[in-house]
């Protein structure tokens, strides 16, 4: 019997596997996907939010614990757990040497991401390069990996882990286990149920795109709920951003972002604006726009810009809809031309003189229009005009197994002796809602390492008991 069984194959699972193996345990990983798609959502990530008190290799200046905590407090609106959040923050300050030992390489912030040069350490080549490095290291250390092995059932003896049953019906037992198999964002049925039906009679989740893997079906979350594990979080909460409506249903990843939102206006299907597009830099606001678009009729919205700002934002992956006049653009988008023109004319008339500068929070704002646009408000008046349709893109869900600082799964507020959880399956303990770049990887890395260490110790304890 193997000492530690890891269910999952992304960052948190790999961190757990490596730590358990380093602690001397024999480790078997079960990854649901084929090798080509391994790594879950981690293959789409790009950085780790890191606390640091002084400049460190790729990180500039300082990002002290308190500031990190305040940032987290702000984005979650207080729906977090301070001790666990601080544990993640502190762990982010000292995990990178360990990551480097396992082959992860860091790079200076990417162009278009200078705003996080101080707070986030970027993986060279992105998350898939990190995942590849961890797999190479794990296999070199003797971790066994089985691909295309989804787990469908948990075998428990009260609060004690016994084993799992795979989709093929195979029963695999182990002395301890770490669950790190992701959220349920790829399960469209469950999303539908979680988001429910709105006042317009729509099922909003039917129009969501999934930014990441298709393998996060939430099978184990459901199994653990059924087994009576303690849960935390609202199933409709998650990291949800506005992305190009033409993105593929799964795995569109980073390149489907539309970064021109803050430089133009956004209208809904009725041709009306609904939120301050220039509230803050887009990278600081993209995480609220998924939800904003989800609330619009038909869950669609259109970012409208003109010639003046082309080349001033990260180039989108698909070409925009182009027209030589605004009415023509509205017609091409099949929006009500009259309302659309009222919105645009009203906005243009409300733009106050200012000095446009997309690299700072500039003084271009509207006056006398609702909603106001508070920065980068320039008249949209220079042909050609471009439009990009937006849809909510869900990155991961926050419904989680409740944990304390040991990462142990809990039943009726008592920790299991040998079952642990990491990554998206428990991120909701720290993230009740909202998101800030790179914190998912901070949580996955911190709790993956804790869970792996805990599982190795539990396996050792089981071994000792077994011998007596």
């Amino acid at each position, binding site marked *: 019997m193997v000492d530690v069984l890891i269910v999952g194959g992304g960052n948190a699972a790999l961190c757990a596997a490596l730590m358990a193996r380093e602690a001397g345990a024999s480790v078997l990983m079960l990854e649901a996907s084929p090798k*080509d*798609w391994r790594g879950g959502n981690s*293959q*789409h990530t*790009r950085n780790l939010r890191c606390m640091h008190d002084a400049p460190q290799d790729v990180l500039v200046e300082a990002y002290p614990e308190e500031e990190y905590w305040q940032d987290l407090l702000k984005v979650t609106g207080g729906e977090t757990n301070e001790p666990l959040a601080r544990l993640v923050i502190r762990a982010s300050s000292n995990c990178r040497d360990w990551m480097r030992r396992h082959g992860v*390489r860091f*790079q*200076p912030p*990417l*162009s*278009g*991401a*200078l*705003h996080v040069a101080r707070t986030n350490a970027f*993986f*060279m*080549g*992105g*998350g*898939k*390069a990190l995942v*590849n490095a961890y797999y*190479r290291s794990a296999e070199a250390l003797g971790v066994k990996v089985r691909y295309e092995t989804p787990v469908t059932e948990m075998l428990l003896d009260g609060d004690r882990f016994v084993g799992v049953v795979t989709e093929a019906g195979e029963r695999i037992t182990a002395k301890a286990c770490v669950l790190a198999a992701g959220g349920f964002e790829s399960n469209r049925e469950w999303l539908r149920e979680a988001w429910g039906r709105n006042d317009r009679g729509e099922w909003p989740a039917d129009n969501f795109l999934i930014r990441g893997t298709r393998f996060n079906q939430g099978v184990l979350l459901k199994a653990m709920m059924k087994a009576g594990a303690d849960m935390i979080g609202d199933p409709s909460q998650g990291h949800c951003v506005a992305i190009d409506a033409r993105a*593929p249903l799964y*795995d569109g*990843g*980073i*390149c*489907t*972002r539309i*970064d021109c939102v803050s430089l133009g206006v956004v209208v809904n299907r009725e041709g009306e604006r609904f939120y301050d597009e220039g509230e803050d*830099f*887009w*990278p600081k606001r993209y995480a609220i726009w998924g939800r904003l678009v989800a609330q619009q009729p038909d869950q669609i919205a259109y970012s409208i810009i003109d010639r003046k700002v*082309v*080349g*001033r*934002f*990260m*180039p*989108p*992956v698909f070409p925009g809809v182009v027209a030589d006049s605004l009415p023509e653009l509205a017609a091409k988008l099949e929006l009500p031309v009259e309302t659309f023109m009222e919105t645009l004319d009203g906005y243009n008339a409300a733009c106050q003189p200012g000095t446009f500068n*997309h*690299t700072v929070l500039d003084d271009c704002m509207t006056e006398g229009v609702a909603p106001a646009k508070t920065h980068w408000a320039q008249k949209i008046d220079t042909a050609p005009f471009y439009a990009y349709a937006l849809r909510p893109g869900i990155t991961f869900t926050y419904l989680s197994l409740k944990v304390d600082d040991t990462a142990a799964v809990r039943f009726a507020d008592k920790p299991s002796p040998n079952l642990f959880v990491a990554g998206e399956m428990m991120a909701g303990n720290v993230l009740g809602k909202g998101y800030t770049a790179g914190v998912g990887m901070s949580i996955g890395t911190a709790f993956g390492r804790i869970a792996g260490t805990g599982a190795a110790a539990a396996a050792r304890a089981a071994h000792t008991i077994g011998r007596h």
Partner: protein
Amino acid sequence: MAAIDTLMDLAGKAERELDANVAEVDRILHICNACRYCESFCAVFPAMTRRLDFNVADAHYLANLCHNCSACLYACQYAPPHEFGVNVPKALAQVRRDTYIEYAFPRVFGELYRCNGLTVAMAVSLGVAAFLIATILIKGSLFVPGLEGEFYAIFPHNTLALVFGAASLFSVVALAIGVTRFWRQVSEPGKPVAMPAAVGEAAKSALTLQYLGGGHGDGCNNKDDAFTLWRRRFHHFTFYGFMLCFASTSVATLYHYLFGLEAPYPIFSLPVILGTLGGIGLLIGPAGLFWLNMRRNPLQMDDRQKTMDRGFIALLFFISLTGLALLAWRDSPAMPLLLAIHLGFVMGLFVTLPYGKFAHGIFRCAALLKHAIEKRRPNPVQAGAD
């Protein structure tokens, strides 16, 4: 008429293929430009971020800037089997071959790139060798003992100098015209920059093969996602081996014309030491590159180039092998035969030089220089700051 139609068909097909290869680069780089995770691997991605669209000139430039290290393929979240099917090294390799054809001089000879492979290289070399052997036979000097390394008793020095001088001069001129055409196509006028610094940087990148280091210095990918420095090392053996052989020939030429010292030179003379060291490099380097080439993941390469790669590798290897054999047995009766075979391979290299893999070094240096120049100018796309 039918023959003309067939030819026109072929020409049309080749043209469409070139367009399709550039279009594929444009499609892929639009995806890359929206992602940018690979920015630190090499020069291709920073160069990409200076553009929003990719025309033929851009594709030609970026194709030659790419060293095919393939770090970006294994790191790519959009690589096959993803429906976006992003494979930057392969798309650029396909265009790279097109650029060699496009800029070759004379232009019609560019078509030779389509067929200049292992077979052509070997056929030319062995053909020349056979011709030389026949010549010696007619003169009756094959397997004549007592020549004691007197190469010029077999082929007079001036004959050799004339034939090989003419061949190498043609190669140099053809390559120079080709790379000039390439430079004109890919360069746009811009703000003047500090040229010595740009040239220095390009030279350093070329001489250290910086971009076979993968950005982190762990190396590039060959078989799978693991990094190896051996591709860089074997290139170094090959390149510096070649340069040592070149130095050996140059020193010998000086000896001959300046000091009247004629070959054969003693074992511990400068030409022989340089040539021997270079020859050893040209055995280890090409052998290693061939070994890596055999194991390279087919996803990383343009399949049609494999034979060109291997033809060049084989020529270098056999030039060195026959050269060292000639040195070892230069005092034996086998000398004339060995000399003929060695000269056959040297001529094979010279003749195919402007239409084979050798060109990659020249075009890559030009692309590195262009990159070193353009990075010193302000980025025309200001998407970066947010």
